[in-house]
């Protein structure tokens, strides 16, 4: 058990920045550039880890604790989901709430750290983040409810395992779930079209503006945390989308990692094709995601499981 957890976390730690690298490469390809190397996120994080921290005199311990807490929270969340042939090392009845709660915890600390700086820019970002994630969380839970109804389980890893049956009977519903979950994924990870991770114009940013005051290894933790978040939520999407469970371990392994790479490329394509939405259109998009999930739920309720 201990070894499994370590293996799981190790894989996540080692491979998650690679996902960002693939996205960057794809975007560069679509822009007609050669782009930064695939391992660039590792270099960035390594560089930051080697630097010292600068703290503003107005900040308190919260500002220093936030990066560590958020990184720890998302790392813990990764042990709740299966990855390819590897089963989830840790799971219990109702762990979907823990899963969502860990993300809420990470977000909470980032937000109060942003408020801790006393800067109006960061406060603005914090309020946007809070508002949008509020909307996203409802959608996430609706999706979980649908999956739980379909599988009659409240355990994240087993909910996903049962998908192979659900896809035959409830394919359209699961497509709705995937579509709305994909929008949640974009919001949670501050990707285009919700937010642009590359922008540094304070007025339009959501996530980036909150971490402007962090530096050194704190910033490295935050970047790492973001990469892991993308990895874990992406892994969940692949798990929902591809009903590969029950196949031989080697096939599962290949399907899962292939799925992750395709997901990263897909994200890169989405980001290349779309422009960032106007800020006031974001809630509309999330409401759309909510309605999609709601329709899925209604269909399940009408058809009965």
């Amino acid at each position, binding site marked *: 058990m201990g070894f499994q957890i370590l293996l799981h976390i190790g894989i996540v730690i080692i491979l998650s920045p690679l996902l960002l690298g693939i996205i960057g490469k794809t975007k560069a390809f679509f822009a007609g550039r050669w782009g930064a190397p695939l391992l660039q996120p590792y270099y960035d994080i390594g560089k930051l880890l080697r630097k010292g921290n600068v703290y503003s005199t107005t900040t308190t311990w919260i500002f220093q604790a936030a990066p560590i807490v958020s990184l720890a929270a998302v790392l813990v969340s990764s042990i709740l989901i299966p990855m390819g042939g590897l089963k989830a090392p840790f799971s219990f009845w109702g762990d979907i709430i823990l899963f969502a709660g860990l993300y809420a915890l990470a977000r909470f600390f980032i937000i109060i750290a942003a408020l801790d700086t006393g800067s109006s820019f960061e406060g603005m970002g914090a309020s946007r983040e809070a508002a949008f994630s509020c909307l996203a969380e409802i959608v996430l839970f609706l999706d979980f409810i649908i999956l739980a109804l379909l599988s009659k389980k409240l355990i994240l890893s087993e909910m996903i395992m049962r998908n192979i049956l659900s896809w035959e009977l409830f394919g359209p519903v699961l497509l*709705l779930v995937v579509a709305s979950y994909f929008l949640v994924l974009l919001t949670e990870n501050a990707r285009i079209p919700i937010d642009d991770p590359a922008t540094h114009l304070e007025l339009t940013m959501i996530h980036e503006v909150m971490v402007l005051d962090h530096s050194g290894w704190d910033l490295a933790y935050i970047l790492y945390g973001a990469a892991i978040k993308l990895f874990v939520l992406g892994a969940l999407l692949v798990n929902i989308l591809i009903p590969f469970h029950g196949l031989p371990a080697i096939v599962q392994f290949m399907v899962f990692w292939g799925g992750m790479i395709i997901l990263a490329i897909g994200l890169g394509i989405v980001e290349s094709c779309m422009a960032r939405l106007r800020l006031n259109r974001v809630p509309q998009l999330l409401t759309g995601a*909510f309605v999609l999930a*709601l*329709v899925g739920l*209604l*269909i399940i*309720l009408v058809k009965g499981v």
Partner: protein
Amino acid sequence: MWLESALILIILFGIIILGNNRLSTMIQLLALQSLVLSITPLLIHPSIHAFTMTIVTIVLKVIVMPSLLFWAIRHVSIRREVQPLIGYGKTLLLGGFLMGVAFLISSKLDLPDKGMSNLLVPTAFSLVMIGFLLLVTRFKAITQVIGYLVMENGIFLFALLLLEKTPLLVEMGIFLDIFVGVLVMGIIINHINQEFGSASTVNLTNLRD
């Protein structure tokens, strides 16, 4: 399975129309919705009758009516809904709520034909409600017509429940009436355009007590 996928696709188009504000996109989405709609008779009960329905629907709802709507807005310069009565996010939420109501109502009704998908009635109700919402909350004349047509699409789905029972003659009469209705609406929108220089019903507030 295919039928249900089609029905969910129809609802999805409805939701997207509700959240959209570009007139031309809305018309295109409506045409797409009608296209999926026109295939459903074949999915429910493949027969000559259903085939006729499909052909007529494709010609009227997918080709003629959208082009009529495009014709009606050909001179309109502002091609998006300017300011709806309630915001898009709220409209979407309200739409979601109304869909819940639609599903609730449908669960109280027993289907005449047990073999049919039990998604058909809720989908039809949802479309009627989405159409009604569009009609009530938007000011552009063309959006109101689109709302009316979404509503008609919902009614069409209800008619599919009776596919094997209603005589073709009456169905064709109904089609013709709806078509002429939209034709007249298109012409009046044209009049509104000429008279007021825009197809917004915000201008139409002179008559009141």
